């Protein structure tokens, strides 16, 4: 029985999978089992995995007979795992050699789930940002009332967490239309103690074919609306969980805010209402003010531009 299980679902990831496997197999912490679940890949990912599995006996390979998607694959991996501490892993990242060691050290200080910071790299491996937490404006959060902030946005990425085996009764099964790491963080934050390591211990790759392109900053309206819809789905699910009654207030504020936001993206009306609601939001989620500001500016800038251009044209034409 190993102490640590690393769960890695793969799907058509032959481009980056070797570098990831090299980095997770060479961890300074040795007592690890690797549970790799191939989600019915159609390229040569399977051959690469089998090559590694022959060389390293700690790797346990499983194959999905159909394409299950990330949620179900992680779920299966967690069910098959046996370690005390469970790490989730994405197929295109790079781990520092000491990641497992440091996170295990941290979790043994009495936490139930810990997460670390990430560096962000692009498809060529070039550094984009030193701190993922700063990029998504969650770097100044304290672990005291995380649940509240988790309603507004996910605060980290699934591949940066490490949690104890005893949590799995609470987090499984992952519902189908929810973002798995968000669900995980939310469920855990309701009941358990979460710790944070401010150091970046791995590199998170952002590229075109990311499975979860939630953080990728795309500015077209369709993508924004999709994200909001996903968010609302998640919120509805979160609201049905146990022990969420005391967060009812925040749920209501957020539902109202997102519905107005949908309206403003679609029709560019109700701006005053939108600003007003944003102020309310700022009051309740003060630590995420940067994130809220960013959204406001992105949503209303096109409208502002339109007004300015109109005024400028009027002046120019001398009407």
């Amino acid at each position, binding site marked *: *029985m190993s102490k640590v299980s690393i769960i890695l679902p793969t799907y058509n990831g032959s481009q980056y999978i070797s570098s990831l496997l090299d980095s997770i197999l060479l961890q300074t912490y040795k007592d690890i089992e690797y549970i790799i679940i191939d989600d019915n890949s159609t390229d040569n990912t399977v051959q690469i995995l089998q090559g590694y599995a022959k060389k390293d006996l700690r790797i346990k390979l*499983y*194959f*999905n*007979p*159909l394409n*299950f998607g990330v949620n*179900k694959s992680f*779920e*299966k991996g*967690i*069910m*098959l*795992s*046996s*370690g005390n501490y469970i790490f989730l892993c994405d197929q295109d990242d790079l781990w520092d050699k000491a990641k497992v060691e440091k996170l295990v050290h941290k979790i043994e200080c009495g936490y139930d789930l810990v997460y670390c910071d990430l560096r962000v790299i692009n498809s060529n491996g070039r550094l984009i940002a030193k701190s993922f937490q700063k990029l998504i404006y969650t770097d100044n959060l304290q672990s005291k009332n995380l649940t509240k902030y988790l309603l507004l946005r996910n605060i980290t990425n699934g591949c940066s967490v490490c949690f104890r085996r005893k949590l*799995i*009764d*609470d987090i*499984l*099964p992952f519902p189908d239309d929810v973002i798995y790491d968000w669900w995980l963080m939310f469920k855990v934050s309701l009941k358990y103690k979460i710790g944070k390591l401010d150091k970046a211990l791995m590199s998170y790759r952002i590229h075109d074919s990311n499975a979860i392109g939630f953080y990728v900053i795309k500015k077209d309206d369709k993508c924004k609306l999709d994200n909001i819809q996903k968010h609302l789905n998640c919120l509805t699910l979160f609201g049905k969980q*146990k022990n969420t009654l005391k967060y009812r207030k925040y749920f209501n504020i957020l539902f109202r805010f997102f519905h107005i936001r949908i309206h403003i993206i679609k029709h560019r009306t109700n701006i005053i209402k939108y600003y007003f609601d944003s102020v309310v939001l700022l009051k309740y989620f003060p630590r995420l003010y940067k994130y809220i500001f960013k959204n406001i500016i992105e949503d209303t800038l096109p409208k502002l531009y339109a007004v300015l251009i109109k005024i400028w044209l009027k002046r120019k034409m001398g009407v």
Partner: protein
Amino acid sequence: MKISISIVSYNSDRVIGDCLDSIFKHIKNVQYEIIIVDNGSTDNTVKIIKNNFKNVKLIKNDKNIGFGAAHNIAIKLGKGKYHLVINPDIIFTENSIEKLLNFMEKNPDVGLISPKIVFPDGTIQYLCKRLPCLFDLCIRRFTPGFIQKLFKKRIDFFEMKDTGYNKIMDVYYLSGSFMLFRKSVLEKIGGFDENFFMYFEDADITHRIGEISRALFYPYTSVMHLWERGSHENIKLLLISLVSTVKYFNKWGWKIF
């Protein structure tokens, strides 16, 4: 045909592939057939079995007729001298069936046998139980952790932890996740009781087999059973288990303490 293996699947697409893979990989030197009864799954279960496992007999039900009733269909169809009932989340790690069959051949008085069932990390699942009484069941199901701690000794006794799970023993209540029957005995008692939709049909059948034959726990081989997902939280499952509990006690007499 030596043994027929029957599996009842209901929305189990995550694990059924691995279960069947492990059977094909580990079960050798024994002639076997696999019968899967699908209880109206709404996910990809049927598709997976049809596409990937050609030599498996698949029976589709339009709706969920319950665990016992579905296994009865498979029991009627099975041609083997022995009949194995497993859950779709059982994974074989060695040729357990051969060992169990050898034991059954040598001891013709045994009608039902179950091996050691372990978690993926190798710890034992305490699935053999003594005769259930209402008090134990209520404590295990409905009370918070600190009350369970108060009655830990009692629950441990109910789960037969005092025996150590390291020798062959007669059991009153074996788990339905892995049961190996002798077909003749199974036919004599008429299969599962179809009044139970889910839960307690295993307690019922162990009880009835115990009356005409022996039900044993066999610790010298093990199979893997995946982590159980919380059925306590789901209200529908809770109701089903309540109904089954009442039916069980009505059938075998109410035993409160």
